[in-house]
């Protein structure tokens, strides 16, 4: 592999360099705000191990299961989930950390999986939309999304739900403004926001 092979031909910055600066980027906000929670992840040990360019096998705890994935080191977490672990519920929309469609939780915190290298996850626990309803028991936010018609095309829905469910973990009594702030990085092109707000507030009520 050539040295510049990770260079994005679309964005003018290299994904790797960007990640070096920002650490694992947090979701739930637009690009400018990424890195807010990154400090939490800086305690990760420096391994000093070179990997690649050939595929390597990594272990990853996904939705409570230990998965062994054979991936190239440049593989993002989003790609690892979608193309290697068969978990296509997580969506890739902008592929540059500005729409939050790919939001998953790492150790319970929302991150943009398109801006996170899979090999950087290490021993942390990944939760995707598929892991939010263990045994088919829907999370109250999922139930409320159904009840209040909070998806039209549904493509933003997994990311939106991961954001809203995280909000309710952190803040069980959100106001409308709190929900708006929490979802301010989640793009919905169909314009379903009013029902997302309604559903999240209803789920908060139900969880009390």
């Amino acid at each position: 592999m050539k040295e510049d092979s990770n260079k994005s031909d679309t964005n003018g910055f290299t994904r790797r360099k960007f990640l070096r600066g920002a650490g694992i980027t947090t979701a739930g906000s637009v690009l400018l705000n990424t890195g807010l929670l990154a400090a939490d992840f800086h305690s990760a040990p420096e391994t000093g191990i070179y990997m690649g360019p050939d595929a390597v096998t990594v272990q990853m705890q996904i939705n409570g299961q230990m998965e062994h994935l054979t991936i190239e080191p440049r593989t993002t977490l989003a790609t690892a989930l979608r193309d290697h672990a068969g978990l296509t519920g997580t969506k890739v929309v902008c592929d540059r950390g500005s729409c939050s469609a790919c939001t998953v939780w790492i150790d319970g915190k929302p991150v943009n999986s398109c801006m996170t290298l899979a090999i950087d996850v290490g021993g942390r626990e990944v939760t995707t939309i598929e892991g939010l309803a263990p045994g088919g028991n829907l999370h109250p936010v999922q139930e409320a999304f159904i009840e209040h018609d909070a998806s039209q095309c549904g493509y933003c829905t997994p990311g939106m739900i991961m954001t809203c469910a995280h909000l309710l973990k952190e803040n069980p009594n959100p106001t409308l403004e709190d929900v708006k702030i929490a979802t301010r990085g989640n793009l919905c092109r169909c314009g379903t926001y009013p029902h997302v707000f309604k559903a999240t507030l209803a789920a908060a009520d139900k969880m009390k």
Partner: protein
Amino acid sequence: MDTRKEKFPYGIPDHNLTEIEREIPADEPPAWPVNDQLQEVGKRRIRVDARAKVTGEAKYTSDIRLPGMLYAKILTAKVPHASIRNINTQEAEKLPGVHAVHILRNEDNSYPDVKYVGQPVAAVAADSLDIARQATRMIQVDYLEKPFVIDVEQAMKPEAPLVFDAPIARQADGGDVGVVHDGSKGQGNLRGPSTSSFFGGPRGDLEAGFSQADVIVEQTYRTQVQTHVPLETHGVVIDWKPEGMTVYASTQSTKDVRDELADYFDLPKSRVRVICEFMGGGFGAKHSTSPYGPVAAILSQKTGRPVWLMLERKEEHLMAGNRPNSIHYLKIGAKKDGMLTAIQQRSHGTAGVALGAGVGRVAQILYECPNFATEQYDVLTFAGPGAAWRAPGNVQGAFGVEQAIDELAEKLNLNPLAYRDKIDQSEVRKVLRQRGAKQFDWSRWKPAGSSTGTIRKGLGVAQSTWPRFVDLDSTVEVKIYRDGAVEVRSGVQDIGTGTKTIMAQIVAEEFGLKTADVIVRIGDTIFPDAPGSGGSKVTGSITPPTRNAAYKAKMELFKQIAQQWQTDATKLVASNGMILHKDDASKKVSLKEALQRMRTGQITASASRSDDYGGFAQPWGLAHGHLGSVQFAEVTVNTDTGMVKVDRIVAAHSCGRPINLTQIESQINGGVIQGVSYALYEDRVMDEATGHMMNPDVDRYQIAYSMEIPAIEPIIVEEYPALSSTDAYGIGEPANIATAAAVANAVYNAIGMRMYEIPITPARILKALNHLDQ
């Protein structure tokens, strides 16, 4: 054809509801009463596919993973105008993991000329998307660069570089629908004009009309290029086997994609199967898979493996469609009493390398006016092709017309809402205005300039119209099974509007079931043909045959039960999971048991869209009447920063008989939000020096996110035109037309300066407030 007479509810409840007798085909069901007497139709029902969407189980095209599947990536042109001297793919082909490289060529094997940045040049299929991306970067393209032009006004000049030096085929879904020019008229990059539509051509005498006018408004309104940004990009997964091609497509029309690929590869249509179970947004741009669909098919043919090809976000902005911009000149005359005497319209817009930038329909049909003429020009530029975008042409048109009407009202010293009451002949819009004004409290409206200080508030209103389009090639099959299942099937796709759910509601209503009891299988061309999701025509086209097929299947079942009960099938009714005898309470059986007693394992009935009761306005499927919308906007303008915030929108709409109130509200919310986003934020920024789009993402291309969402209050007015067995129509496009104009009128009301161009950015507000235009 056997017919019978049937009485239907007719008109608007709580306004002018009455009954009308129609002659209808004998095999169609009896008239439904108004919604409050129905069980499933007209109610709030959960989407039948909601669970799949909230759990991540829903498989969109981009989620399809087939055994042996390869990932493809397109290489796009990096220059706006060039001929290609050579393409070297050797290095790319050698990259481990690459399985095939395809170069796009003309029929004579030459390289196509490049006409815009983002035009597909070649494509690679590889083991992973990362490898395919890497390989495309290793392809060397030797361009002979040529002069180009991006700006519309520059492109119109005689000395401007020509995009095409010959007539070009019209892109079918580019813009305003109707009778349009084919690109052969005009000179240089200026093509047209289009002077008529299916609502009739020019009428009366403009000059005479303006000479009768006491007041005249003459202005030019400008709108920007808006890109669609569906969250799921355009794309396909194609598996081309010797026995035929299976295509998973993110499309608004399974049928059109099947026909397109069958034509392209000269295959029988039966050998191309197109599947679209879940679709991540289209908004008008996803009727075709050209040019990437054929590329994926060729890569699949070359490798003998399924090929996944979804556009990347940047490519989506560049090549997959956009709403053309407009420079929209309007001159409208009125008498002292307000009656319109003449409307003259002239528009120029660019759909890049395609045609379809017309904006004339709103001016032509929204208000009655004896004298009207229009000239709509397409300007070709070296940019990606336009495509239909939720009410193509009408959003741009309404932005001009509905501001001009406000300007006339001001000249006539009339309240803008009262002025519309005076000149608008539409009965349904009258009701929408009344109910909307009450909800909004329009009585708060004061003339522009009444709000003072740094933070100023403004109120505005705008309205629109949308035709009732019907596609007669709409067929639905209903199957009932001995094991109790009731199923509805059609090729029609659900693009997030809720088509699956309304079909289930209708079948449930007919069989006395719950919506959730009905199995819906759609989005597959192995099922009967049905229309593409465009023109807001799916609901009006597909719901009558859905009901009619369900009715036929039910009557077959009733015949068998009636035979057992020694009565007539017409005496039976289905209600609450039971089949009952109308006159004999002792005779009843559960639907489930009745199905178990069927003589055959299943009964299948199908129905196609019949003509409207009483006929069409035009026989190809233009129905009588229209879909009305009136939207009220409340805005806040900060005169220090120039920031505009839309605080509240009341959106009053009609769509015939509403089927699912919640889903309709979702669509109205979406139309309004897209309208707010269009009015204030979105703008495709092109670098005129390089021909590149400067913001091909979702952060620099600004779209309304959660913090920009106003309070939205939808009002749905039931209207029964008695035209079909359901009387239902779509809402997708009407919801989006009036918003930008309503916001612009509210901004004027707040600051006393009219915004003739969108997006209404802080810079434009400050420029207007400081009178920097002069």
